[in-house]
């Protein structure tokens, strides 16, 4: 069965690239434009992994991760975050919030896919 990925990013171009890459690989893709928007997908449906940007309006990535970790249905779902920050501080913060891992932007499709396959199969 196809795995369902929820992408959350406020940048349309990033969303599209990720979306395109994942669909090509056979993933089912859900797209949220920010944390707030992403929450609407977490309505009981099956989602295998969330990939979220950190800096977003309304509800940012950290906020989203914390919220998801409190949701009974989703609290153990893998969450990867997209970041350009190579600083450890940001990663630590996201990890503490409950993120599973991260993907450093810029990424090539292969890197994105390998990061995902690191947490879901």
């Amino acid at each position, binding site marked *: *069965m*196809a795995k*369902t990925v929820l992408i959350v990013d*406020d*940048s*349309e*171009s*990033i*969303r*599209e*690239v990720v*979306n*395109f890459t994942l*669909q*090509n*690989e*056979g993933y*089912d*893709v*859900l*797209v949220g*434009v920010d944390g707030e*928007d992403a929450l609407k997908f977490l309505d009981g449906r099956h989602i295998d*992994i969330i990939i979220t940007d950190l*800096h*977003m*309006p309304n509800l940012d990535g950290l906020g989203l991760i914390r919220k998801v970790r409190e949701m009974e249905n989703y*609290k*153990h*779902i*893998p*969450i990867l975050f*997209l970041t*350009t920050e*190579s600083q450890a501080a940001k990663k*630590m913060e996201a*990890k503490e919030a*409950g*993120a*599973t*891992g*991260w993907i450093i*932007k*810029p*990424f*090539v*499709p292969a890197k994105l896919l390998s990061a995902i*396959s*690191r*947490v*879901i*199969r």
Partner: protein
Amino acid sequence: MIDKFKAKFVEESMDNVHDLEEALFLLEKDMNNKELIERIFRAMHSLKGGGAMFGFNHLSEFTHHLETIFDWVRGNKLAVSTDLISLTFSAIDHINHLLKTGDLTNDEEIADQKAFIQRVQAFLTLTDSPAQKAGMTSVEASGAEAAIATKTYLISFIPQPELLQNGTNPLYLMDDIHALGQAVSIAYTHKVPSLDLIDNTSNYCIWQILVNTAESVNEIKDVFIFVEDECELHVDQIAETNIIGKPEINVLIEKALQHNLLLTPDDFKSGDWNKVQTKEPEEKKKVVVKEHKISSIRVTSHKIDELVTLVSELVTIQAQLSLYAENHDDPVIGALTENIQKLSRQLRENAFDISLIPLQSELMRFQRLVRDLSKEQNKDIDFVIEGGDLELDKNIIENLTDPLLHILRNSIDHGIELPEERIAKGKSPKGTILFKAFHSGANVIVEISDDGKGMDTEYIRQKAISKGIIEADAVLNEKEILELLFVSGFSTRDTVSDVSGRGVGMDVVRRKIANIRGEVTIESQVGKGTLISIRLPLTLSIIDGLLVKVADNQYVIPISSIDKIYALDPAQIKQSFNNVVIIDKEQVPFIDLRKVFNEPQHQTDIVQMVMVKSEDKKSGVIVDNVVGEYQTVVKPLGRYLKKQEIISGASIMGDGTISMVIDTSRLLQSRKNIKVTG
């Protein structure tokens, strides 16, 4: 595949830059606003991240430095200052340039950018923060070690119980290790409690893996990168060759499992290992069904234009259908027609609504202009915007921007005085330019007013005389003098400044606005300021008109310019002198459309005069009779009829005939050219 997204990225980045600019304006007024700083940072961040992904490397590098600045600002390591804001503004221009050109290619520009980055870095070095690394994290420096020989490593992976709670599946990590080369994993399960005590969100296992791989220790550690904080991890080289599968090794593993004692590198010290290699095939993923959900879409304006055109066609056809239904007493067609009419009206409203865009989108440019020019001229100007959320037809906004920029330039350049001058006049040193947009009936009014020095009518008069625009003894009232500003070839400044007066005068402003069926008026008071008011239609493609008949033809006069309608005796016109009739004891100039269109004289016993006003002129327009109000889709005239000044377009009537739409402001202006009857 990336190329496909590049254009989108640029478009989106333009929005980002726009947002950035807007936030920066607000920040300038409220320098401690955290939310704004966050917004700016976010915009920079997106530009940088996207830039790198889509091959805009210079853009990415450049914004990286800016992002660092705003990251510091965010972290209170750097304070917002006017200098910082100015720097960021010029940075925005540079970003715009980068987005437009794609990327820098010539050396000069690259050097420019370097210099710019140094300026940015100067900001960072001014502060005494320790973090000084402004270098861009390089993209993928793949460690291409020419290591062909494989080595065997012992990996000890001792996770904390919480490992599973962040969505990590340790078995995948094992898989990843297996993908590196031949591997054997050992799971120590002695800490797993009895079934009734198991908490299924906790991890109780410990793993050790022997792997034979060509990869380095770091590559192996990379597999655990997501979990390095939730586990104890050791990677030790235990052999220069592949020792996996050797009987001695198997014995060691069995012993370790029996006693629940983890293997240590020392256990492998004795042994003469041989070289054996195997490879594991990589698994492939299947392609399955796709699902795609996006809540809003972006379409090209071309598509919207096309939609509006199609809807306009539909409205015309529908009118024809209505007419047919009226003339044929068929209840089925009648009912259908009514439904179609309702639908097409909704569709039309919808389509026009889509093509409306908020004025806001252009306001940024105005704000920027005011800011930059006032800085340049050392003037202190408060630019106040009211009604920026008002929506207008895209085509109107496109054509409105240049005239508005010109008017604003004039206000800054000629209107607002220098602070000292203002103080001397007893005004506040800070000048105000008010940009106001609001609805007025079927129109939108855009006003730009300043509290500057106003227009000196005597000066304008003299200037007009010296330019030969008016006679020296011409008697003009104040309004008429201000009107002179719109005459082509008039420029009030003696010296042409860098700013306004670049050969484009108010006459061009008026012409451009007239092209979008708008009107410009000007009011001014010496010492108090100037108000320029622009009246615009809501949309260009549809018009509320009054259908009138002249001889055998029908014409449409825009309702918005109509004041009153009178019935007249044709004799009154015949007896009139100088095209003026007396109505309600007032002299009213008139234009006889029959004359304008070279039709034979009236045979009827009554004619109608429609009073129209345009800008400050008012005149009667004589027509045979008024048919009624009519909402219609205006089509532009073809190339052949472009020279027809007083006709702004044509409309197809329900019965398929064509009626011309009269451009009232041009008609009124043409009045002086009409032959005077004796």
